Structure formats: structure tokens, C-alpha cells
């Protein structure tokens, strides 16, 4: 890392996240103005976008090479009052919450109180959304059966494709003119709507070009003021780049990064889409520019590294926009889930790992920033050196990069109907979700609490936490004689809540299409221009809606406990089990331990538990997969939790697997914390019993202590473990290297860390089983390595 990057990185790390009222104020002023009266929704949104980009403050920070901020300063984070409007109470929460706070100035508070809140209150997308939901939906939502993504942020969840490296916004405008010319006003009842949408896209294209022009002017004015000739030269280069992109296709490496960055800013200024935006397969996109630059002498590897690092810092300057309401109290991260993919396959099916893939890994390793997140795609064709290099970075204990299986991603996308080339150009974004980059609207609609549905089934339709009947009467569980009786009741209950969820999501699809088109994003995702339709209206080539199942490990263990102790061994009656749950095991610790320890549990390569997991998977799949959404596409499943397993856990009472009320559920497709006791190969075997290829992504977390990965051999075997999992069609795995604090926690709560393996010396053992002195020794060794 050179001095400039060190300085920029330090600036970024030190910048205090602050809530900015700039966007809220500009939007409010625009919506109040006469300019917007009578405009159709797409034109209104495009004009608002243009107004915002024309009037917002722009900054070029000292030493920057890649320029552009969403807010008036680094980490100054705007709000999107047309989507969700922060109340004064929300601002207080954001300013005071102990983790992930945002500074809120007195001026900002005043602007919210006087201008923003009075204007938007009752008119936001969030208000419209809740007003359209049915009482059943609201009951289930409040009970924690599911969450709804679009009550906080706009749909997005998409990734930039490859076209912006070949075309600029000027080219998009030509395509828009062609689409307009082709409209059939004689036959097509949608021709008018399409023409408005296309005009809106053209306005958005002009707006981003003008925005870049402001940066070019700013760079030129700084240039005349600066004495330092080196900085003058840099500012000249910045001005030249900003005058060229995003109007035209990038000419060189610097242009390409600056081009993407303007596009990124456009997307995250237009709305607050989930997962921000992301350049996707960056190593492949940039490769032609990199090779050309090296060949003609205009670029060196070092210069490319510096530009990439400068680009990385821009992501880190943009925290995730803060939420409102309860979610604001719970939200636990500044990260906005821009996940940069490297490696994988090319569109022609060749190995996509290239020299830039390695350079990007070096950048990831050196930068150690929260944002952007990084992922490597591993295909059968990827060289071992690439996988091992990625694992060496994982070993440093920063949880990145995560590892994805290219062949699984391609197979998942093909099953959903994508072309082979589009599938190979795709990847994983956000957490782990699969998408055809640049060509798909794939929207995560919300998390779904599988365990809660079982809890409601076990109470014959009643949510025991509220005592309210929110589900179907599927029968008194005490009358169930066999596992199949319980599973049949669960299946009915599941279908009931999935129908509620899908009905809600369909309405929300239409609300966003009607009230919040995104003409700028629509420029970027094929085939919105050709179709003359907005991204929210089904303009994309592919349109998927995901519902993310949560708690697969917990529900499998619950069913396994019932199977073993109630139906098989008859050690507990159903009635007795339910009374244990209703009393949260108070005074019944021995019974709880029995359920915890004498139950076959998911994650141990034991079919007794894993077969039940497969049954739940099939029921969930059958309830969702293939059902139509309102954008011309279909619903699909994926299995990932982010941090919602904690919230869902709080909403779920004690469960038959021995989990106490309020404790977290299992996350992703990982086993319940501490339930896997046969080591990582058994976890992988269990997880691979899921048919990953019928999902749009699954998330598997594995914990390791640094000692286990200390040497070449540890890395080599970890690589082999990954290859084996991917050979079994696993979608994703990430390795969290355990730190000393976790080991301390394991000493205190051994029952939660029964799966933690540590390397003692030439052998490894379960941490919680070894003597205290040895534990201390390992903790001090771990601490030591953390400082290295």
C-alpha cells in the first residue's frame, strides 16, 4: 500500500458515518415545486433524479483518484423519504444506538422536523405498502413469521453486467431512440407508457452525464488552484476521465473504474436499492483494459493496484442507508452487501481466473475494509493456486473472501431458464443469491421463519407468544400418531403462510412499478431499453422473486427430537413435550439436555436427522418454486439469513431441539450452533444433502481456529474440503476464523460451542472438552496470532 492509499484508507476509516439531510431536502423541494405537477411516475422520477444530481454538493477529496460521493462528504449517508421517512424518534435511535451509530446534527434534525417529515408523512412507499396489506399479512408479519424487505428499501438486489465496459450512456440514448421509433401506437395499448418510460431513461442518462461534467469542472478548478505539479497532473487525468465517461465507453483502466463508479452512484442516489449495486465480475470486465494498458505502456501492475485500491475505498465511504422503526434498533451493519466476484468461468465456459483475479485478491488482503465484500467463484477449471490464495486471506481472520461454486451457480440459473452464456456471466451477490448479472431483476422479498411455522403447527394455529390464532387449525398435535401426521399439518400451515407472503409481495411488486419506477437502473439492466419497460415493471430479461428460508437446522433438529423421543422411544408424550416448551424448560434442565444431546441432529452426516431436513426442504420448495410473480417471472427459494436468525429467534418460543425461548435460530444451512460434533466433513456431507441446484443460493458457515490453518498443509486440506463440497454441488461456503474472544465465550458457554475444533498440537480436539490450562494456552496462542 503506498502513502496515498494509506492516507485515503485512513481518511475512510476515520470518517464518521453521518446522516445527511441533503437528499431529503432536495427531493422535498423538487416534489413541492411546480416542475413536477402532472408528470407520469417515470418522468417524475427521472426529473427528480436529474434535480438531485444537478443540485447536490460535490466533493473531490485530497489525494483521490476515483471521484464521486453519494452524500456531501465521505460516509455522509442520505435518506430516501419517498420510500421510508425517518421520524425524529428514528433519528434519536440512530444517533444513540451503541453499535453502528450515525451522527445526526442539530441542523439535520431541524430540517427533518420542519421540511422533510411534514411533507412525506403518510405519503411514503412504506405507508402505501402497509396500507395495502391484509390483516392476515400484518398478523403474520408482527408475529415474526416473515419479514418484508421492501418496507425499508426499494427492490434492487441486482448487479451490473458487462455492457458498460463497451458502451456509454450516449450509446444507451441511441438505443432508447431506436426503441421509441419502434413503438407501435396502432396496436400496443402500452405504447404510451413505454414512451414515457423511455423518455425518462433518456433524462436519467443525460442527468448522469451532466453530473460527471460537474466533477470534471470541479477537478479543473482544483487544478488551477493547486501548486503541486503531481497533483495537477492527477486532477487533469480525473477531469479528462469525468468528461469522457459515463457518456462514452471507457478507453482505459482508469476510465473503466470511474465509469462504473458514476453508474454506482447513480443507482444508489436514484433509490436505496437493497444490496446497493455492484460491478460483478470485475476481473473479467477490467481485463481488456488492463492488458491493453500494460501492452501500450500506459499502465503498470502497480498503477492498476493503486487505482483498484482507490476504487475499494469509494465503496467503504458509502455505508448502508439506515433503516427506520424497529429495524433501525436492530440493524447491525454498515455494510451494504456489494459483493465483488472474481474467478469463475467466462461466457464461453473457459476458466475465468486471470492475472487480475490475483491482483484483486491482493487488494482485498491489503485493504481489509468492511466494504466492498469479496467473493471468489471456484469452478472445476479454477487453478488450485487461486483457491489457496483466497484461503490464505481467509486465514487472516477477516471472513473474506467467501467461496462460491461456479458450476452450481450455472446449473441453478439454467434451471430457472437462463441461457448458458447468461448463466456463466452471472454469479452471487448480496449474501449468496444467484443472479444473471446485468440481465436480471432478482428480488429478495423477505425472510421466512420455518421454525415459527412449526411452533404454530404445534399449537394448532395459535402463536403461543401472543396467544392469537394467526394460522390454520391443523389438528391437536397430541392426537398425532406418526411423524407423517405432524408433517402433513406443517405442510398445510406452511402453504397458508406462504400464500399470505406471496400475495403481499405481488401487491408490493405492483406498488413499486406504479409509484417508484427506476429509469436510471433500467438503463443498465438488459432488456429494459429494448422492452421499453422499467426494471420494476418486468423490463429485465429475467425476473425472479426469492423468499429466503431461515432456520433449516433448527427445524430439522426439532422434528428429529419429536421423531426420536415422542414417536420412536416414547420417552416423552407430545403433551409433556409441549408443556416443557410452554414453560421454557424452567426447572426441567435434565429434559432439555436430553433433547439437546440424545437427538440425532443435522450436521453430523446422520440420515436420521438429515432425512427430516430434506423433507422440510421439499415442502418449502414445493410451496414456492415456480409460482408467478407480477413482473412476468417466478418465485424461487434460497436459504440464507444475514442476521435475521437472531430476530426470528426472539420471536420464537422454546423449541423441541432444546433451544430456549428467544435464542437465535440456526443460520443459513449451517447446523444449530454446537450441534455438529463430527467435524467439518460431516457438516459438509449433511449440507450437501440439500439439492442446492434447485435453490437460488444457500449459505454455509464454518468456524476454524487459526492454528488449524497455520501451515501449508492446513490450507491444502481446506482447499480439498472446498473442492469436495463443490463436487457435491454445494453452492457457497465461508470460513470464519475464530478469535480469542470467541474462545473466551466458549469457555463460559461450552454448550453453545460444542462444534469448535482447535488444533492442540499434531492433533485437534473439541475446544470445550480440553482442560482449562490447555484452553488458556490455545487462547494465548490465538491472541498472539491475531497480533501478527
Amino acid at each position, binding site marked *: 500500500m503506498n502513502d496515498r492509499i494509506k492516507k485515503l484508507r485512513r481518511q475512510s476509516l476515520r470518517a464518521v458515518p453521518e446522516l445527511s439531510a441533503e437528499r431529503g431536502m432536495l427531493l422535498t423541494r423538487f416534489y413541492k415545486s411546480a416542475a413536477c405537477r402532472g408528470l407520469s411516475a417515470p418522468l417524475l422520477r427521472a426529473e427528480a433524479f436529474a434535480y438531485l444530481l444537478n443540485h447536490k454538493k460535490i466533493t473531490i477529496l485530497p489525494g483521490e483518484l476515483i471521484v464521486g460521493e453519494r452524500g456531501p462528504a465521505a460516509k455522509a449517508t442520505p435518506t430516501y423519504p419517498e420510500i421510508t421517512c425517518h421520524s425524529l424518534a428514528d433519528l434519536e435511535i440512530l444517533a444513540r444506538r451503541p453499535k453502528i451509530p450515525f451522527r445526526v446534527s442539530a441542523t439535520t434534525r431541524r430540517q427533518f422536523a420542519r421540511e422533510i417529515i411534514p411533507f412525506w408523512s403518510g405519503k411514503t412507499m412504506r405507508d402505501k405498502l402497509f396500507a395495502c396489506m391484509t390483516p392476515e399479512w400484518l398478523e403474520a408479519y408482527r408475529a415474526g413469521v416473515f419479514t418484508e424487505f421492501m418496507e425499508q428499501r426499494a427492490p434492487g438486489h441486482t448487479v451490473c453486467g458487462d455492457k458498460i465496459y463497451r458502451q456509454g450512456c450516449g450509446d444507451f440514448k441511441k438505443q432508447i431512440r431506436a426503441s421509441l421509433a419502434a413503438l407501435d401506437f396502432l396496436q400496443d395499448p402500452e405504447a404510451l407508457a413505454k414512451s414515457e418510460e423511455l423518455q425518462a431513461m433518456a433524462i436519467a442518462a443525460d442527468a448522469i452525464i451532466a453530473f460527471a461534467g460537474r466533477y470534471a469542472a470541479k477537478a479543473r478548478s482544483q487544478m488551477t488552484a493547486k501548486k503541486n505539479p503531481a497533483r495537477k497532473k492527477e486532477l487533469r487525468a480525473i477531469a479528462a476521465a469525468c468528461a469522457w465517461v459515463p457518456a462514452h465507453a471507457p478507453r482505459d483502466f482508469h476510465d473503466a473504474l470511474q465509469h462504473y463508479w458514476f453508474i454506482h452512484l447513480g443507482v444508489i442516489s436514484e433509490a436505496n436499492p437493497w444490496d446497493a449495486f455492484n460491478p460483478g465480475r470485475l476481473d473479467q470486465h477490467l481485463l481488456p483494459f488492463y492488458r491493453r494498458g500494460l501492452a501500450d505502456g500506459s499502465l503498470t501492475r502497480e498503477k492498476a493496484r493503486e487505482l483498484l485500491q482507490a476504487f475499494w475505498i469509494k465503496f467503504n465511504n458509502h455505508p448502508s442507508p439506515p433503516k427506520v422503526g424497529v429495524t433501525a434498533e436492530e440493524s447491525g451493519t454498515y455494510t451494504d452487501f456489494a459483493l465483488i466476484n472474481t474467478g469463475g468461468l467466462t461466457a464461453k465456459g473457459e476458466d475465468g481466473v486471470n492475472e487480475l483475479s490475483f491482483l484483486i485478491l491482493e487488494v482485498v488482503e491489503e485493504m481489509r475494509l468492511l466494504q466492498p465484500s469479496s467473493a471468489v467463484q471456484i469452478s472445476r477449471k479454477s487453478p488450485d493456486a487461486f483457491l489457496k490464495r483466497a484461503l490464505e486471506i481467509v486465514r487472516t481472520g477477516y471472513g473474506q473472501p467467501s467461496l462460491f461454486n461456479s458450476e452450481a451457480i450455472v446449473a441453478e440459473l439454467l434451471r430457472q431458464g437462463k441461457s448458458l452464456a447468461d448463466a456463466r456471466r452471472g454469479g452471487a451477490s448480496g449474501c449468496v443469491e444467484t443472479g444473471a448479472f446485468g440481465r436480471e431483476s432478482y428480488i429478495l422479498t423477505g425472510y421466512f421463519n420455518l421454525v415459527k411455522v412449526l411452533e404454530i403447527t404445534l399449537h394448532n394455529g395459535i402463536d403461543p407468544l401472543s396467544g392469537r390464532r394467526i394460522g390454520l387449525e391443523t389438528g391437536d398435535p397430541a392426537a398425532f400418531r406418526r411423524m407423517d401426521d405432524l408433517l402433513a399439518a406443517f405442510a398445510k400451515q406452511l402453504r397458508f403462510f406462504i400464500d399470505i407472503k406471496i400475495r403481499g409481495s405481488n401487491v408490493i411488486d405492483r406498488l413499486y412499478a406504479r409509484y417508484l419506477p427506476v429509469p436510471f437502473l433500467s438503463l443498465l439492466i438488459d432488456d429494459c431499453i429494448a422492452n421499453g419497460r422499467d426494471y420494476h415493471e418486468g423490463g429485465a430479461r429475467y425476473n425472479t422473486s426469492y423468499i429466503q428460508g431461515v432456520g433449516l437446522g433448527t427445524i430439522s433438529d426439532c422434528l428429529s427430537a419429536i421423531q426420536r423421543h415422542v414417536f420412536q422411544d416414547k420417552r416423552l408424550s407430545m403433551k409433556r413435550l409441549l408443556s416443557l416448551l410452554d414453560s421454557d424448560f424452567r*426447572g426441567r*434442565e*435434565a*429434559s*432439555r*439436555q*436430553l433433547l*439437546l*444431546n*440424545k437427538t440425532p441432529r443435522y450436521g453430523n*452426516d446422520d440420515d436420521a436427522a438429515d432425512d427430516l431436513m430434506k423433507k422440510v426442504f421439499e415442502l418449502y420448495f414445493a410451496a414456492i418454486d415456480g409460482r408467478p410473480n407480477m413482473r412476468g417471472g417466478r418465485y424461487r427459494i434460497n436459504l440464507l439469513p444475514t442476521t435475521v436468525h437472531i430476530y426470528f429467534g426472539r420471536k420464537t418460543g422454546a423449541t423441541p431441539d432444546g433451544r430456549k425461548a428467544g435464542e437465535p435460530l440456526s443460520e443459513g444451512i449451517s447446523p444449530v450452533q454446537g450441534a455438529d460434533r*463430527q*467435524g*467439518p*466433513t*460431516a457438516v459438509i*456431507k449433511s449440507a450437501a444433502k440439500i439439492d442446492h441446484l434447485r435453490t437460488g443460493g444457500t449459505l454455509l458457515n464454518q468456524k476454524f481456529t487459526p492454528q488449524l490453518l497455520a*501451515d501449508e*498443509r*492446513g490450507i*491444502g*486440506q481446506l482447499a*480439498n*474440503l472446498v*473442492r*469436495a463440497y463443490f*463436487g*457435491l454441488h454445494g453452492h457457497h461456503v465461508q470460513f470464519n476464523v475464530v478469535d480469542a474472544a470467541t474462545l473466551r465465550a466458549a469457555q463460559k458457554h*461450552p454448550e453453545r460451542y460444542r462444534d469448535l*475444533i482447535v488444533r*492442540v*498440537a*499434531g*492433533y*485437534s*480436539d473439541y475446544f470445550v*472438552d*480440553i*482442560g482449562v*490450562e*490447555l484452553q488458556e*494456552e490455545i487462547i494465548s496462542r490465538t491472541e498472539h496470532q491475531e497480533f501478527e
Partner: protein
Amino acid sequence: MKGIIFDIKKFAIHDGPGIRSTVFFKGCPLRCRWCHNPEGISPAAEVMVFSRRCLSDCRSCIKACPRKALSRYAAKIVLQRERCDHCGLCVSACPAEVLQMAGRFVSAEQVIDELAKDAVFYRSSAGGVTFSGGEPLQQAHFLLALLRQAKKKGWHTTVDTCGHAPWASFTKIMPWVDLFLFDLKSIDLGRHRRLTGMPNDLILENLPRVSHAARSLAIRIPLIPGSNDSEVELARMADYCAALPRPHPVHLLPYHRGGGSKRERLGQTDPMPGARPPSAAKIQQIMEIFRQRKLTVISGG
């Protein structure tokens, strides 16, 4: 064909090449003071007590024991081992896994079925299965049955042995073993007897023969502070290794304190309570002794 084992450990990456599963045989002719698998010494099943897991309000095990071998003392479960006949009733009664049985009789087929679960990893990593213990050659027929079936499946096989077994047992298994991990604890007969309870004559007879006959062999030397880590002793061991019929890699296994807590679970006292693992610098010095004799040496398995 049945045998007694006390564990099958998966993702073993220090017991031979690649990702392996290791089967731990129960019963060992030696009594090494530093033994880190003391539950592998006795050839009979034994109850282990993980007292830290015990719940305060549960007496399930006491109620389950027909021989009144269990009682509660100072908030801890105490097992009077002289009364215990290892019937296992307490183990199944205990909900919290305080009581666990070290040692179960299993058929070769059962073991192979369990090992087969990880075959995909052996393939992806050029790994395989390892038979360790205890001393696997103590149950030579059972070992042979396992090795044969493992080879039939195409797995790489490793036998981790203390070397104290009749040569006839070695010859029987020899065709089915890809790699031997052969322990060497001391060249000095008297010291060997003091440290392990057995003389080393049989071991020192077998090692050259295995060196000659085995497909592949690595010598494993545990480094026990104050017991076998003097320069003289190590130089003798290094000379001995260098003089074997064929050159073999040497694995130094630095002492660690893993055995102590296991002894506690078995109701035994740790014979080496004060021992400390050797320092990294000391290990480097020792490795040099072997390198001087042109031996390939690594620390750890």
C-alpha cells in the same frame, strides 16, 4: 469379525496424507507417561466422566446404576471405579453427556460403513483412512479385516503403531498398508522401560524390518521434556534412523497437555503434572540434529 475401538475421528489431517478418518483401537501394550489418549490404554470399555457438564438438579445416573457405583460429592458426580462393571446404564441415562463410554465393540463392516461416509473427501484430497489407538496391532485380526476392506474400496491406508507387536502380525498386514507411522520413544532400553513400562527390544527389532518391507514409513518421535529430549538421546535416535535400511521422514511430536484432562475423566492422576511443551526454539534446535544426518524432519504429524 469384531473389535473394540474408542473413536472414529473425521477430517484428521495430521495422520497421513490428505483428509483422513482415523479409527482409534482400544488397548495398548505400552504405558507411556505422556500418553495423550489414555482412554486407549486399557483393552476394556471404561466410563469417562466429564464432570464440568453435570447439572445440579439431576440424579439420573445415580438412579440408573444397579451397583451403586455413583454418588454425588461436593456438587460433582463421583464414580467408584472398583464397583463399576461398565454396563453403560448410567451412560444412556445421563442427559447431559457427563458420562460417556470409551470403548465399543463394533464389526469391521460397521467401521467401514462409517469410514465410507467420507470417501468423497479421501478422493478429493488423496487422503484415506488411518488406524491408530491404542495399538491397532494389538487386535491384528480385526485390523487385517479392516485393512483388506479399505483397500478393496481403493482407499489409502495408514497404520499408526508403537511397534511393540509380534513380527508375524506385521507380516500379515504388510500387503494392505500404504504407510506406517512408527513411534520411536527412546533407544535406551532402561529409559524406555521407565517411560513406557516396556522394554524396546521388540520395537527396535521391528523397525528395521518394517523399514525394509513397508511401502512407506515415517518415524514419529514424541518430544517429552526431561524424558527423552536430551541431546545425547536425540542424537542416538537420529543416528538410529539414519542407519535404517531405507531413508524415512521423521516427524517430531512435541509434548502437549492434552492427556491430562483425559486422565481426569478416567479417574486417573496425571503422571506428568508439571510438564510443559517444548519451546519453538528448542524444537528448531532438535530438528537441526536430524537435518545434520540428512534426514527429512518436520514438527507435527
